[in-house]
């Protein structure tokens, strides 16, 4: 076996470097799902009656649905009655008292990722309020945002403090009945983020779930709702490159975005959930419904995602382009390694006139990973002058993995333009040798080539996130010279 094949093999066999287990004591309710469990969740969160009804309706609908099987992913049947649907961490005093008590290996990983010390403490669940307070990111920013009329906080908080806004938009983009996992989420969602940008306000900073979600451990059924009112702008960052303390397997989130006239939402994700071990044991099933509605004229929604984690990813961040001249974008890097499977892509539904959409998808498969791009571009009769450009590139590392592309195009208006480009490439032995002959190690070469491949997507990420995404790939590629 040649060195470069070995490099690819080792790359494929690398271990999850964030795979530490933190067994935190938590308040949990009994396993299983029924109406009582939903009432209990709602009661624990002190929700209004309408929301409980909404959940119950979703649950009743969910009971009539069948788990989808059309995705190109394979996994054992999930027993939905063997899952704990509500779990919140016990008082933080049970956690490590200071960074000194945290596994130094874990801290090393954080350091490699360039996460500041305070954030490291938060991520590791250090129960030192003083540390958190001394950072005070959340609070400082929050008051500043409040002055501008921006509402940003946990979903539960929003339900309590802005029930009318939540009620007005909740489920209007992803209805509770939308699909199996969305219905499940609507029934049992634990928490998530809510964000409202008022008319004409440009949010001055990137909003991130980073500090907020880590301040309070949310469950596996997150619900996010972002509304940009007329002329508003917001850039939102989701997820983090470090592990979350997830003891359960299923993660079914729903994200809804609403952009009114002339509003813009930029939504960026770096997802690095536990992908399972090298034999395919364990890992998160990431079954997520994300959709944005460009309701207003000239509105724009842009999704950028870097998906490197999860055992299975099932995710199609989509745009409903309703307003005339509205714009939808989807930029994606999905990496599957070992036995990971990803079936991901987007749907662009053109409804308004002169709507445009851009899709750039980069799939990287290594090990036994299976990577599927599934995209739908639909141009309705009303969408005169609509345009779409799609580009789907796949890269293969090694010869055990697979890349699949399923683009669906449905065009009902003859004045529209639809373009689709696709390519598949392999990291060649010749490319790695060329780099080595210039003094560059094989692992740096693989890393460089993969970065080059993903560049078009990385450049869409906000600066800091792009650096993190690159580091994440970089760290993942470490130790690859056999």
């Amino acid at each position, binding site marked *: 076996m040649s060195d470069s094949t070995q490099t690819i093999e080792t790359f494929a066999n690398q271990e999850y470097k964030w795979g530490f287990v933190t067994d935190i004591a938590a308040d949990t309710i009994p396993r299983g799902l029924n109406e009582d469990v939903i009432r209990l969740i709602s009661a624990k969160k002190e929700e209004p009656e309408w929301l409980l009804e909404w959940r119950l309706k979703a649950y009743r609908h969910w009971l009539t649905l069948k788990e989808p099987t059309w995705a190109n992913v394979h996994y054992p049947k999930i027993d939905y009655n063997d899952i704990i649907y509500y779990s919140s961490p016990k008082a933080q005093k049970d956690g490590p008292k200071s960074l000194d008590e945290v596994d130094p290996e874990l801290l090393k990983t954080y350091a490699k990722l360039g996460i500041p010390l305070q954030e490291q403490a938060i991520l590791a669940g250090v129960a030192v309020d003083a540390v958190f307070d001394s950072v005070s990111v959340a609070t400082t920013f929050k008051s500043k945002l409040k002055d501008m009329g921006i509402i940003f906080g946990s979903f539960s908080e929003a339900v309590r403090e802005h029930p009318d806004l939540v009620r007005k938009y909740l489920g209007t983009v992803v209805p509770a009945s939308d699909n199996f996992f969305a219905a499940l989420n609507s029934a049992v969602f634990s928490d998530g983020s809510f964000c409202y940008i008022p008319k004409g306000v440009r949010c001055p900073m990137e909003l991130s779930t980073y500090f907020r979600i880590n301040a309070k451990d949310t469950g596996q059924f997150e619900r996010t709702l972002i509304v940009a009112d007329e002329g508003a702008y917001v850039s939102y960052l989701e997820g983090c490159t470090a592990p979350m303390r997830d003891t359960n397997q299923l993660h079914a989130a729903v994200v809804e975005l609403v952009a009114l006239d002339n509003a813009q939402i930029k939504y960026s994700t770096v997802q690095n959930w536990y992908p399972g071990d090298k034999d395919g044991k364990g890992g998160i099933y990431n079954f997520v419904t994300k959709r944005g509605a460009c309701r207003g004229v000239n509105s724009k929604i842009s999704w950028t995602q870097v998906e490197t984690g999860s055992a299975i990813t099932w995710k199609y961040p989509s745009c409903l382009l309703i307003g005339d001249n509205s714009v939808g974008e989807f930029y994606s890097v999905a990496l599957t390694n070992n036995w990971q499977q990803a079936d991901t892509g987007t749907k662009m539904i053109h409804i308004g006139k002169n709507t445009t959409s851009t899709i750039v998808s980069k799939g990287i498969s290594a090990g036994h990973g299976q990577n599927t791009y599934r995209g739908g571009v639909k141009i309705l009769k009303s969408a005169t002058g609509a345009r779409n450009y799609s580009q789907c590139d796949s890269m293969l590392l090694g010869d055990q993995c697979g890349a699949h592309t399923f683009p669906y195009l449905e065009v009902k208006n003859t004045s529209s333009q639809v373009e689709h480009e696709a390519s598949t490439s392999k990291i060649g032995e010749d*490319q790695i040798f*060329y780099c080595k*002959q*210039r003094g560059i190690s094989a692992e740096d070469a693989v890393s*460089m*080539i993969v970065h*080059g491949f993903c*560049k078009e997507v990385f450049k869409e990420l906000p600066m800091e996130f792009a650096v993190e995404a690159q580091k994440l790939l970089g760290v993942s590629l470490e130790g690859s010279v056999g």
Partner: protein
Amino acid sequence: MPLLEIKDLHATVGDREILKGISLTVNAGEVHAIMGPNGSGKSTLAQVLAGRELYAVTGGQVTYQGQDLLELAPEDRARAGIFLAFQYPVEIPGVSNMYFLKAALNTIRKSQGLEELDAFDFLTLVRDKMTLMNMDQTLLNRPVNTGFSGGEKKRNEIFQMAVLEPKLAVLDETDSGLDIDALKLVAHGVNTLRSPERSMIVVTHYQRLLDYIVPDFVHVLAGGRIVKSGGKELALQLEREGYAGLGIADDEEVAVA
């Protein structure tokens, strides 16, 4: 001590023996031309010296600066000052030429205990070398060899060599596919880099290149062995009489790029 000493080198690809006992000594500052018909093993020799894994060394020794070269990984050979100008430079989409070259230079510098160059110093260095190769600045920002013309690729190889300043440069058919103007440009670059501390092995099929890069020694390779060695006049003899004049026929059986 010679810079490079090859003794009775044998190499195979798959189960086919391509190098069948090559011996060659290169001292510091010398330029050796390796000529030979297609399939004689010229490119194999170049690739084996650089450490290409496709080829298995089955016998003989190669000593470089007193150490066993064959023990070294390809990247360590590069860091020790061996540079191969590729016959077919490889494209790396999405990675800018500048980023690539800076990574290469800094890795090499680091291994030699030198400080890494920052972006500013690197750019200053690179500008000088670009002038030497008469290269367009925009090439720096383009992805490595991607969309380059044949001539641009070859010039880019010599440009990289100028930046990396190797001790031993192996030029593998750098003249192939070049028109006369590009050839002169490449030769000018190479000649500028000639120095008493730098040795070169110039692999070529045609004598033409040697009009511009005048070698100290010429070796004729055929059937995996050096069949004749001489001074630069040997190349001229080949030009006049062809390989047939030396009793060598093109070996069509072996043609591995």
